[in-house]
């Protein structure tokens, strides 16, 4: 119910939303949790395993119970914490993990059979028969236990990633954080202040503390206003710093669009930030811990701080007659605030005997709540005092077992927190994150004065390290009450006393783990699931640790903590992977002829990031083979045009360019004449082939290297490595010009005639012989011409600046069509090269040597080169290595498949008898049958032998004759002619 005169919500702005189909009103500033409580809705979820009815436990992002699904259809989002989700008009919220309804959940039967479902139950119960795991047990368990589900539809929301940089990142905008940010900002530092809440101020918005004689939230608003006006400050609300990483890098999730229903204004739903900070100040506050006792999980039981937050920030009392149970002074503020607001207090129970409590309500000292009753809402609590047992009628219990500083971020780089016995809690260890200091409640300093003072002090220290002066900033006046508490973790008694509400882990489960020798805290966690899922044990870890310590006879610091890992609170994969969905997963690289190819109906295939035409279909052609065969015919009989711009092109210049090439290629390039091209083979240092391609010498100190499409990046990196790391004394520089030049193969007997129609100066065999290269002018555009051939035909590659690529391609194709040729795609290109036995990365696939591909002779004896020494190792030049051969089917079956393995004719097709494999196959119009390239033991020594090729995957078996890998024009006369 709402409490008159309380809260920071805007009562003039009514907001209507729905929960499980029913419409409710709240106010601007409400969360789903506060608005539902205001409407007296307390049942908000069902627990993970036992489907017990649950209400909110907290008022923040650490909420373990009130997980809901927000939105409808594809845009629906599961496991949203009702305590974080702000309401807006039209917001649709559904409960989850309950069927058929939250009110009546069939799976609550789990709760009745719970004796069989204790810690590690599925390790013990569902062992046999083994095959039942996947088909029976796991689906059943998954349906019975769980969180909300995804819609299964494509996520229509957009997400972003962004970088930010600052001198000082302040994490958390409570009293310590605001004071630190203000100090650092006034001192001239570049400050980012990030807070997960929509409203900055932390606990000051949830308490009735005064600062400088004003209510805390008034002081907060003044400070935030001042910070917002400063150019050197960025305020990031609704932004959770989720992880601390190396060298001052932080991950942070900004919830940009969750608090309104607008999805059409271009703003993303979430933005994942990487914030780089020279220094960071952790002022993340502290989280109140519950107390474990029987049935401490009924809706209506929550932390004392949550009750104060609902009252003071949202003007809501979670009940009509409240009971407070705690072990520390702080819990009593709840009673004071409630009484002040006129809410009835049923009882205040303090586990300590030596405390002085004043109040106009029943007070029990040295007493404990040991059980509760009620169904889907709390009805009464049972307490044990020195006088005996008593039952108190109450609909809300506010409990406090003390406070845990939020040390999480300080543990993200392997740091372990330090146990402080005086506050019975872990605090950050100094230096756990380089450049980070902690202040305020997250450092174990709990009074408002202490938080303000420490915030100012650490900011001053950071300013000093930045070489800036601490500003003269008077410390505001605030309360400085000591934090007095006595440890109280679990109340002795029968039944299940819950520790981890989200995972349904009870005190008994922890004790059971200890009994079964899962005594290490990490083992206990995995055995019981304590501290897993969305809240990561924020409420329960320390309590569970205390129980484990007790059960194993150790102290808490000796027992240790589990490891806190990023993220601090859940981050959607969509936010971390923003921009990488769909087409964003891999950039697309298009050649200049792309649209011309697409217009011609060519299916485009991926080659690395590039897209290349597979073939150019003509009307009447029913299969790709018909198109491919026709295109092969263009090149063999007339002239074909193919875009080869995707091959890597590296411009290499400098007096030592030739020396570099001699060193990276196996063969000589220093002897290459200007105006000539040479084929080169490149090895890795271990002796295997890295890449091959041609290299043209355009000038005494100027070369252009081509690489295969796939290896362009690796070769570039390799050249830079050699030039910078092995021979920095060489005067040579290189740059990739792949995208600057559009390059087209003009191949076939009519290639020169076609070119002479477009070149400004005609060429002939004397002026432009085989392997010649140089500058030329095409239709008035300056470009380059290389007489090289990947088809075995009389062929050229013509290159122009990329901006002329499309028009040149269209012109060349049109002219080719006029003489019985046309464009050809990757399929035809592949046939043409297989017929000639030219290798690609199908053959030089990272395990083959120059010897294997029949190019051992290309390793020059006159010089050193990368890979030369290792290529000479005996094992790499043994005759019985699998070496390159060609093959033709000779039996009844005429089909070949790449990937098939090769066996002796009469050998059984098993691994022990494997003698090689097929790497490339095609139907050769020239040969009239399928042909293939592959590797066979002793390779060339077996020409003429008939062998057995078996493709176990495609269940194909073919007899082949092993032959030389060149099927067409072995003398090479056609390319030279």
């Amino acid at each position: 119910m709402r409490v008159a005169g309380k809260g920071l919500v805007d009562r003039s702005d009514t907001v209507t939303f729905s929960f499980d189909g029913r419409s409710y009103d709240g106010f601007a500033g409400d969360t789903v949790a506060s608005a539902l409580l205001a409407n007296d809705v307390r049942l908000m979820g069902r627990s993970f395993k036992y489907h017990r009815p649950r209400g909110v436990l907290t008022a923040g992002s650490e909420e373990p119970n009130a997980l809901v699904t927000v939105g409808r259809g594809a845009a629906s989002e599961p496991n949203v914490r009702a305590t974080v989700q702000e309401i807006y008009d039209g917001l649709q919220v559904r409960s989850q993990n309950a069927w058929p309804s939250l009110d009546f959940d069939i799976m609550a039967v789990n709760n009745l059979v719970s004796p069989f479902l204790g810690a590690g139950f599925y390790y013990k119960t569902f062992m046999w028969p083994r095959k039942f795991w996947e088909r029976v047990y796991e689906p059943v368990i998954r349906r019975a236990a769980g969180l909300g589900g995804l819609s299964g539809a494509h996520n229509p929301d957009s997400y972003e990633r962004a970088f930010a940089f600052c001198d000082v990142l302040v994490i958390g905008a409570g009293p310590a954080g605001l004071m630190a940010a203000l100090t650092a900002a006034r001192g001239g530092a570049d400050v980012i202040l990030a807070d997960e809440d929509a409203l900055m101020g932390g606990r000051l918005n949830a308490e009735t503390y005064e600062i400088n004689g004003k209510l805390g939230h008034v002081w907060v608003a003044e400070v935030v206003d001042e910070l917002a006006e400063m150019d050197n400050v960025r305020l990031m609300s609704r932004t959770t710093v989720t992880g601390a990483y190396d060298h001052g890098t932080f991950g942070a999730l900004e919830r940009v669009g969750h608090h309104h229903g607008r999805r059409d204004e271009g703003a993303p739903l979430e933005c994942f930030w990487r914030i780089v900070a020279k220094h960071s100040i952790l002022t993340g506050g502290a989280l109140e811990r519950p107390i474990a006792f029987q049935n401490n999980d009924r809706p209506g039981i929550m932390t004392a701080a949550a009750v104060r937050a609902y009252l003071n920030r949202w003007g809501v009392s979670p009940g009509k007659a409240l009971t407070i149970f705690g072990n520390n002074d702080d819990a009593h503020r709840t009673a004071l605030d409630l009484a002040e607001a006129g809410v009835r207090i049923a009882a205040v129970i303090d586990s300590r005997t030596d405390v002085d409590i004043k109040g106009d309500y029943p007070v029990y000292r040295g007493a404990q709540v040991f059980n509760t009753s009620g169904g889907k809402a709390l009805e009464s609590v049972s307490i044990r005092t020195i006088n005996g047992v008593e039952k108190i009628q109450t609909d809300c219990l506010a409990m406090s077992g003390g406070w845990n500083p939020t040390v999480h971020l300080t543990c993200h780089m392997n740091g372990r927190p330090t146990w402080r016995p005086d506050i019975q809690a872990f605090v950050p260890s100094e230096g756990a994150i380089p450049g980070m200091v902690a202040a305020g409640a997250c450092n174990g300093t709990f009074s408002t004065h202490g938080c303000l003072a420490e915030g100012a002090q650490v900011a001053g220290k950071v300013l000093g390290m930045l070489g800036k002066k601490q500003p003269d900033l008077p410390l505001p006046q605030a309360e400085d009450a000591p934090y007095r508490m006595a440890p109280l973790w679990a109340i002795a008694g029968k039944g299940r006393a819950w520790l981890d509400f989200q995972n349904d882990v009870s005190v008994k489960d922890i004790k059971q783990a200890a009994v079964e020798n899962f005594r290490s805290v990490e083992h206990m966690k995995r055995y019981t699931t304590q501290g897993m899922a969305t809240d990561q044990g924020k409420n329960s870890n320390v309590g569970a640790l205390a129980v484990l310590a007790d059960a194993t006879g150790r102290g808490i610091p000796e027992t240790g903590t589990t490891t806190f890992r990023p993220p601090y609170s859940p981050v959607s994969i969509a936010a971390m992977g923003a921009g990488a969905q769909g087409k964003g997963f891999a950039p697309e690289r298009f050649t200049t002829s792309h649209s011309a190819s697409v217009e011609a109906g060519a299916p485009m295939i991926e080659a690395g990031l590039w897209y290349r035409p597979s073939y150019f279909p003509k009307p009447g052609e029913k299969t790709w083979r018909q198109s491919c065969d026709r295109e092969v015919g263009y090149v063999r009989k007339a002239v074909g045009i193919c875009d080869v711009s995707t091959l890597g092109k590296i411009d290499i210049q400098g007096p030592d360019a030739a020396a570099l090439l001699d060193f990276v290629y196996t063969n000589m390039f220093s002897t290459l004449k200007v105006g000539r091209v040479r084929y080169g083979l490149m090895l890795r240092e271990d002796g295997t082939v890295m890449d091959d391609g041609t290299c043209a010498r355009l000038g005494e100190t100027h070369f252009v290297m081509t690489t295969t499409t796939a290896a362009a990046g690796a070769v570039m990196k390799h050249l830079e490595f050699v030039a910078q790391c092995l021979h920095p004394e060489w005067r040579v520089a290189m740059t990739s010009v792949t995208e600057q030049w559009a390059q087209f193969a003009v191949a076939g007997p009519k290639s020169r005639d076609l070119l002479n129609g477009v070149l400004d100066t005609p060429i002939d065999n004397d002026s432009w012989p085989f392997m010649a290269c140089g500058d030329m002018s095409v239709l008035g555009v300056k470009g380059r011409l290389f007489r090289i051939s990947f088809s075995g035909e009389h062929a050229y590659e013509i290159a122009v600046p990329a901006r002329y690529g499309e028009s040149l391609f269209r012109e060349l194709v049109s002219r080719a069509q006029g003489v019985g040729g046309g464009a050809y795609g990757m399929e035809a290109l592949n046939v043409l090269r297989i017929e000639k036995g030219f290798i690609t990365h199908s053959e030089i696939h990272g395990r083959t040597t120059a010897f294997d591909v029949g190019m051992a002779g290309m390793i020059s004896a006159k010089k050193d080169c990368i890979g030369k020494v290792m290529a000479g190792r005996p094992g790499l030049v043994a005759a019985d290595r699998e070496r390159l051969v060609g093959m033709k089917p000779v039996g009844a079956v005429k089909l070949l498949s790449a990937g098939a393995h090769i066996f002796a004719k009469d050998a059984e097709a098993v691994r022990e008898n494997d003698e090689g494999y097929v790497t490339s196959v095609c139907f050769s119009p020239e040969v009239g049958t399928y042909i293939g390239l592959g590797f066979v033991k002793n390779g060339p020594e077996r020409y003429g032998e008939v062998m057995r090729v078996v493709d176990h995957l495609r269940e194909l078996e073919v007899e082949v004759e092993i032959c030389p890998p060149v099927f067409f024009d072995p003398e090479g006369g056609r390319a030279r002619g």
Partner: protein
Amino acid sequence: MRLDCPMCGSRDRREFYYQGDAVMLARPAVDAGEAAWDSYLHLRDNPAGQTRELWQHEAGCGAWLVVTRDTVTHAVSAVELASDVKRAMA
């Protein structure tokens, strides 16, 4: 993770390509023998502590770098141009 490229300044690690131990700068002579080549190519120390490793500022200036990094703390104590390091070895 951040690296201070001597050319470009402090940059996110996503701009860099990691190669491996900086021993790759010390390429043996052709006649150094099998053991030296084996060591150069295959044998690497795996220390808990300081390592010197090769990175390339692939999405930046292209410079190859020798990064001195502590494998335990991930603290980077030096980033040098590999060409400078190699020249100094000569």
